[in-house]
């Protein structure tokens, strides 16, 4: 009887201890969880603003350093550009005549006329088309069409001459056509051909300089 009583007591004791251990584990897990939650709250309310301010200041310092380095480079480049400009200052009017800062229609016409006159070609008609090309954003241009009649070889020489002139232009197309012979007497001037030249002249507006 006493054995049974003591074994019952022992079983109750084991059960109590195991329950107590389980309880302890739960309590410990809860404690750790709560501690982590407190750390997270501390990080959110205290560390986050601090880190945000520190990183903001560090970013500002680095950006200022970057600006100083880049501005220094740009100042050096500007000084170098000034030196280079001083070197070519004497030739600047020549460059200006090459790509003028205004349309300079007179210059373009004279250039064609002079090169024609040298080769005995008198231009009969010159017309301008001021339609701008939307693809060319950094430079302005206009089209010039010249037509006349004369000797074929003289035209070729004229083309060769104007190709070597100072103000460059783009020869978009040129054409030769035979004039309609109205009588047999006109065969005497059979070497004369109609000549058409389409050219594109460039100029650089001052307010159109690449930014």
């Amino acid at each position, binding site marked *: 009887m006493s054995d049974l009583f003591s074994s019952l007591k022992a079983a109750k004791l084991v059960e109590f201890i195991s329950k107590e251990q389980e309880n302890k584990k739960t309590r410990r897990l809860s404690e750790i969880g709560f501690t982590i939650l407190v750390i997270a709250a501390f990080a959110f309310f205290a560390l986050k603003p601090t880190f945000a301010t520190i990183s903001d200041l560090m970013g500002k310092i680095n950006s200022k350093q970057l600006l100083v380095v880049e501005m220094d480079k740009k100042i050096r*480049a500007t000084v170098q550009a000034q030196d280079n400009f001083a070197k070519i200052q004497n030739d600047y009017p020549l460059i200006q005549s090459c790509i003028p800062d205004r349309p300079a229609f007179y210059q373009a016409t004279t250039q064609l006329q002079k090169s024609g006159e040298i080769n005995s070609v008198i231009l009969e008609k010159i017309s301008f088309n001021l339609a701008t090309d939307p693809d060319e954003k950094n430079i302005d241009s206009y089209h010039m069409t010249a037509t006349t009649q004369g000797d074929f070889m003289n035209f070729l020489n004229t083309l060769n001459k104007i190709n070597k002139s100072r*103000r460059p232009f783009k020869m978009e197309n040129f054409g030769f056509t035979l004039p309609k012979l109205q009588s047999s007497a006109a065969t005497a001037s059979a070497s004369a051909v109609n000549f058409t030249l389409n050219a594109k002249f460039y100029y650089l507006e001052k307010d159109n300089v690449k930014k």
Partner: protein
Amino acid sequence: MLKSNNISKYFFILSILSLIVVCLSIYNVSLNNYLKPINEAKGNELIKQFDPKLDMETIKEIVSREDLTK
């Protein structure tokens, strides 16, 4: 007993997840704050570089060409 043990486990996992989320949010905010002024500085028009070298060959070519307007 088993129920309270489960609740404590969930609580523990939730707290760990909260800590991870807070750490990631701190990292994100800090990185944004760090990179924003640098990117703004990089996009600044004032520091856009230009090439100061002049193409002397072209200038020589211009000088060598005949001016037909005179």
